């Protein structure tokens, strides 16, 4: 597993998500208003919706295209049995986002 520095946490406005390209993979990283960070695959498994453009409330994300809901902690869809790939991510002491892949 490798560690990647994604840059300062405040590049992501509170309650929103942004996409990063990590090697060959696009990853959506979210920063909640409560200060937690989550990272999942960038595209919705349903029709490829851009998840980083979704609505975030706590750890629940709503895809902008057809309103599918996901729990970002587990990647699990809140209905249906599909899920998202999740990544371990954190914010270090100097407010940098660190992702493990």
């Amino acid at each position: 597993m490798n560690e990647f520095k994604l840059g300062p946490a405040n590049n992501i406005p509170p309650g929103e998500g942004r996409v990063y390209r990590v090697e060959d993979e696009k990853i959506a990283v979210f920063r909640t208003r409560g200060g937690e960070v989550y990272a999942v695959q960038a595209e919705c498994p349903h029709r490829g919706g851009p998840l980083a453009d979704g609505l975030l409330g706590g750890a629940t994300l709503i895809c902008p295209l057809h309103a599918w809901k996901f729990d970002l902690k587990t990647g699990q869809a809140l209905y249906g049995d599909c899920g998202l790939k999740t990544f371990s991510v954190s914010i270090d002491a100097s407010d940098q986002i660190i992702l493990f892949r």
Partner: protein
Amino acid sequence: MDALADKKKLVVIGNGMAGARVVEEILARGGAEQFDITMFGEEPTGNYNRILLSNVLNGSYKEDEIFLNPLEWYQEHNIRLLAGKKASGLLRRAKLVYGEDGQPEPYDKLIIATGSHAFIPPMEGTTMIDGTLKPGVFVFRSLDDCRQIASWAKGKHSAAVIGGGLLGLEAARGLQNFGLDVHIVHIGGHLMPQQLDPGAGAILKSSMEALGIKVHLQKNTSQIIGPDRVLGLRFADGGTLECDMVIISAGIKANWEIAAGCGLTVERGIVVDDQMRTPDDPDIYAVGECAQHRGHMYGLVAPLWEQAKVLADHVTGKNTQAAYHGSKVATKLKVMGVEVASMGIVEPQTPEDEVVQFSEPKRGTYKKLIIRDGRLVGGILLGDISKAAYLMQAFDRNTPLPEERLHLLFDIGDPPKQVTFAEMSANVQVCNCNGVSKGAIVACVNAGKRSPKAVMDATRAGMGCGSCKAMVADIVGWACGGETEEDPSVHYYVPGVPLTKPELIRAILERSLKSVSAVFDLLAGGKEDAASKPGLASLLKTLWKGEYEDEKDARFINERVHANIQKDGTFSVVPQMPGGVTNPAQLRRIAFVAEKYHVPLVKLTGGQRIDLLGIRKDDLPKVWHDLDMPSGYAYGKSYRTCKSCVGSDFCRFGLGDSITLALKIEQEFQGFDSPHKLKLATAGCPRNCSEAMVKDVGAVAVEGGKWEIYIGGAAGSSIRKGDILCYADSHEEVLKLMGRFIQYYRENAKYLERTHGFVVRLGIERIRAIVVEDSDGIAERLDREIAESKAAYKDPWKDAWLPENDKQFASLLPILQ
């Protein structure tokens, strides 16, 4: 300090459907952390479904199948159930409840849910000398009664049920299964007097008799004959009836003794206020059949559920404003295979009440509706209850009925909708957006989801354009046998904040909450709900206008980037073009942008504008800069645009200047947030070329220099011709009246409720009274709100190439390593 010592003691007297339900509601509100719960239950078991007792008697259910809360449930939730122990006394000053054994039980909060017992009318020979019922005489209220009736009935020949109400008929139905000759003896003139009128009662009697039950009306039983067991009945008119057993089902009486014994106000039941509290003691509540609210007592489960929710909200402090306002009683049932639906009153009460009636005794069909001011106040359906779901909903919600009364009773010439749900094949697609079939909805109900909202969340039915929501709700109701659970959040403005829209507006203004995060912090216990964010943002903007503190994350992506997201994640850009009027300079700029950014599709919209589709998020600010035109808001839950026909300048039929009016309308309302889209149009004559009659708000010029104002039209997923609000003499008058309606809609519609739903829900008369006649005295304020919203308008494209956050439009952020 010991955490447990902090908990308050909650004691519930009664472990029937009311007591157990209220505890479930309290647990659902986190009550286990606040209270140690103790329940007194007179019966030695957990809580069972009393409604199904007649099914146990007739053998279609086994005893253990009707339990709602088996004993393990109490253990799992750490509830101390004193099963088989009756509470016998209450000492309010010391806050103690006494059990029959004299053991005191201290409480901080007390809930009385003692229910009711069978009323036994005075009849000679009912009891033995020791006060017990004569052998062969029974009441029918509990599982134990059920067992005793069943064991006595074996080998007997005939049974009489005293009382022709709902419970009596159910008992009769149960008894028939033992091969007995069953008689119903009723003191009144017709069966089921609570639910039916004489006409329906007579038809039900024929139906009962066809099934072999003998019905004796206007028979006052004066004596139960037999020295040591039942041999027959004697009536006041001198007649007799031989029988081997008697079930007394002549009504119920509330169990209020424990309340009366300690000085609580008791009339027919224990008197409670709108919070289900006794007026004498703020720590004592009463709920269910023992409670009397605003003079009414309820014996059905639906009101009990509503009461339990309010009580739980209040006692847990979850919502201390929660109030019970009484229930509208409606019921749907099957008596011996005869389907009955009944709601509200059974006879007209004023000379103005309109009665719509149909009777076909030969087929056992009877239908009667009582209508007051265009709304349903009472109804009886017997034999054919295919319209029950619709009528019960109209009754419960007090919605206006269609003028054509015939359609209220029958489905005549309507297209496929009239296929009853039972006949509808399981693979019929109900939700055409998300491809959900009737079978999938029914499967979801059978898997335990009992409310329309829960089923919609789980299956996604109704979550696309939303036009099938009513049908999904009807199918859920049908699949639940009419016993749907109502999700309380349907009354909230947004699901994540437990307040109705008026309550929410009051709280926001009182506490000066200007951002979505502040609303979650102070009104939702700090819990964010993603789906609730856009609705809150819209309302806050409507209320605070320029003072609203915008938080981008609260907005749907379209409103964050002021463009409409497409299936591939690109966006569409629609510049403002009111009335569909443009000029060569604008067209040149649009052409220039389309080429410069390689726009894959340039298309005219339905709103008479030009759409540039397939633009990358990163390019949006540059596109706006190069266009140098204001945003057309083609992406928002907001005022969209006003289209127009050519009007009087060129058209040879034009009666009014519709183009100028459209331009003025756009200037007036541009950028307004609203509960849903607002699409407007103006037409220069009644030929209606711009389709103004099917818009959210429209104006149509008519001869004589006047404009007809239409509201609540729709021509999208729903189609509806708007209602005429009023006539106006000038453009200025049109703007003023449209503005008032729009503001009233913004303040009162649920989030995502289009004007066509809103106008139907409130009724055009009510809206006209408020908006045109100023019946509520708010017109001046509505006008002022509109003027302030207009003053706060800012074109979102204007400075967007200097975004506050330079990452707002970046589709990909760079990484450091």
